[in-house]
């Protein structure tokens, strides 16, 4: 096993040559930026398609705010999922975890617990369920796919038990988290999404913890031999995913003033799609949270655009699938072209 080093993100590492300020380095930097921007270009192209289809009103502040709002829950789920995937694992239990968390939050609010403590307690609940996932993977040695499939069922049952199979409606203690609009346009879930994305992006890209997390995902054995407590980072990733799912559950409760055991039924598919669109390598060790955000926004643009254009639901499923394939092909095309250029530069 070769010696382990933390991922080097410097342009010189990517291009393999060049001194600071050299032309090669500048070109390498530009190429890296372009590679990271590929999904943003895909987002821009997707928006352009719908502007051409629907008209300039697609770019109205209100519509863009609605798109951001519709992407916010997907993005929050996806950020948690991305961290787990970067650690070389996967979490399929986020939807029922969010549903159970929403029910816990509703029960706390109904019991008279003030909203902020209720939010913190619910995040704690999500962290506990995330810890269970992490321990099943690290201590029990169960594959993350199987472990979180099992907890998907368990947490779903837990949600039904906690709610006694019913909806809990008329709980408005989290309305500030789900419905408030800043300046009459920007929704609270959008703001929460931005905060979650920025904090997580900084954590992953700019802290030693984040780099170690990527190291664990990239080569767990090498990371362990370098003294990194791989189990702790793995459990930490699941705890983070549990917390983001619980946060999403609280936002849903605030948004709907209703908690239901089947809430967020499509969350895991949307989240993994956003993660894949964002170019996070499913085998772990690589990824960029800002690209995941762009992936979630692509989904939001497509769903909103199709509805604005009156595409009937059954056809919308087909068109969504086709557009996603086109988006991924375009993203791969751009990324591949940039990487080939980088390799050519490195050889030169």
């Amino acid at each position: 096993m070769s010696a382990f080093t933390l991922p080097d993100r410097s342009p010189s590492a990517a291009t393999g040559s060049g001194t600071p300020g050299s032309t090669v380095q500048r070109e390498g930097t530009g190429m890296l930026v372009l590679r990271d921007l590929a999904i943003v270009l895909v987002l821009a192209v997707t928006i352009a398609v719908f502007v051409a289809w629907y008209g300039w009103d697609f770019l109205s502040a209100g519509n863009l705010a609605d798109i951001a709002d519709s992407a916010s829950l997907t993005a929050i789920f996806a950020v948690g999922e991305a961290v787990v995937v970067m650690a070389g694992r996967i979490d399929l239990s986020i939807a029922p975890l969010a549903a159970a968390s929403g029910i816990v939050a509703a029960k706390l609010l109904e019991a008279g617990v003030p909203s902020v403590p209720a939010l913190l307690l619910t995040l704690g609940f999500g962290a506990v369920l995330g810890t269970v996932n992490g321990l099943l993977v690290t201590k029990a040695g169960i594959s993350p796919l199987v472990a979180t499939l099992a907890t998907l069922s368990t947490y779903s049952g837990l949600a039904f038990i906690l709610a006694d199979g019913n909806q809990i409606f008329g709980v408005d203690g989290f309305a500030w988290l789900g419905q408030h609009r800043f300046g009459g346009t920007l929704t609270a879930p959008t703001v929460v999404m931005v905060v979650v994305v920025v904090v997580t992006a900084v954590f992953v890209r700019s802290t030693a913890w984040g780099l170690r997390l990527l190291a664990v995902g990239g080569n767990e054995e090498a990371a362990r031999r370098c003294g990194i407590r791989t189990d702790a980072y793995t459990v930490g990733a699941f705890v983070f995913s549990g917390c983001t799912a619980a946060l999403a559950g609280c936002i849903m409760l605030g948004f709907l003033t209703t908690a239901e055991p089947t809430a967020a039924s499509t969350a895991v598919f949307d989240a993994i799609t956003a993660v894949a669109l964002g170019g996070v390598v499913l085998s772990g060790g690589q990824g960029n949270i800002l690209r995941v955000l762009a992936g979630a926004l692509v989904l939001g643009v497509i769903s909103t655009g199709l509805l604005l254009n009156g595409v009937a639901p059954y056809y919308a499923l087909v068109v969504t699938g086709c557009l996603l394939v086109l988006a991924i092909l375009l993203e791969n095309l751009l990324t591949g072209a940039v990487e080939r250029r980088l390799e050519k530069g490195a050889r030169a």
Partner: protein
Amino acid sequence: MRKLNSRRLKVGATLLLVASLGLAGCSSDDGGSAGGGAPKANGKRLTIGVSLISQQIPILAKITQDFKALGDRYGYDVIITDPNNDAAKQIRQVRALIERKVDAIVTGAVNPESFEPVLDEAVAAGIPTVLVGIPPLEQRRGLVTVDFNWYDYGYAVGKAFAQCMNERQSGKGQVGLITTTAVSGPVVADRMKGERDAIKALAPGVDIVAEADGKSDRVKAVQGARTMLRAHGDIVGFTGIGDSEVMGAMQAFREAGKDPKNGCFVGLDGSEEGIKALKDGTLYAEFDPQYSNWMGAAAVILPEMVRDKKSAFWSSKTVLFTPAQATAE
């Protein structure tokens, strides 16, 4: 003849009991505590397997629990399976129930056509079966259908919606529907067709400008309605596949600064939330398919069939339920 009349009398009495099960079927709170004098087959407690379309659909989860709660009263335990809207999974699960030799089965087929062979197997094994919601392609001895016409249900909803539009909007205006692609079959397709047909026939000036896919996820229903309202600012009402979707659309309607009492919203499912909205006047009408009564019927019929092999229910009966329009009272 005399014997036949006696059987008919018993069936009539049982159906009368079924019809009066509104309270029993709807009330899970009693927890089946009224267990005194519970009829039991040969003194032993029965085991009834339940396989409805999905336990992930709250109303179906609720009526399953209601059915379970009636177990003490009618002398049975319940094995609940969850196909989660997967026809193949349901077939495997029901076959497992047959293998296990449960005393009876109550089921609603995810895919009626592919489910036929399983019904044959249940009948061949002598296991009385109640099929709820969608009738079988072929009647069989030992199979009782608790039938419900989804198209008529949708038509009744559409009729009330058209009535509202005629009253409040002079029969003209743009409206939206919220459907779902998370569930398939007549439960969705026939219901939505009934709604569209009724609106078109009874309020021809009303324009259904768009349909959104709520994917059985209320957040998506709100977001879909919000987008529809952005594209068609003149939308004055919504209906759709269920209370959750209609109430979600109502939330988006309010966000757009509109008062639901001036628009048209018709709910369906008979949920607690829907009844509350009917009482406060934000829903024009609410329809209850009486799901709990379907299961209440099964709770009466199946023990009767197990206990009495000569019961007329063995001769393939259909118990028809019709949607009831809920009242604020």
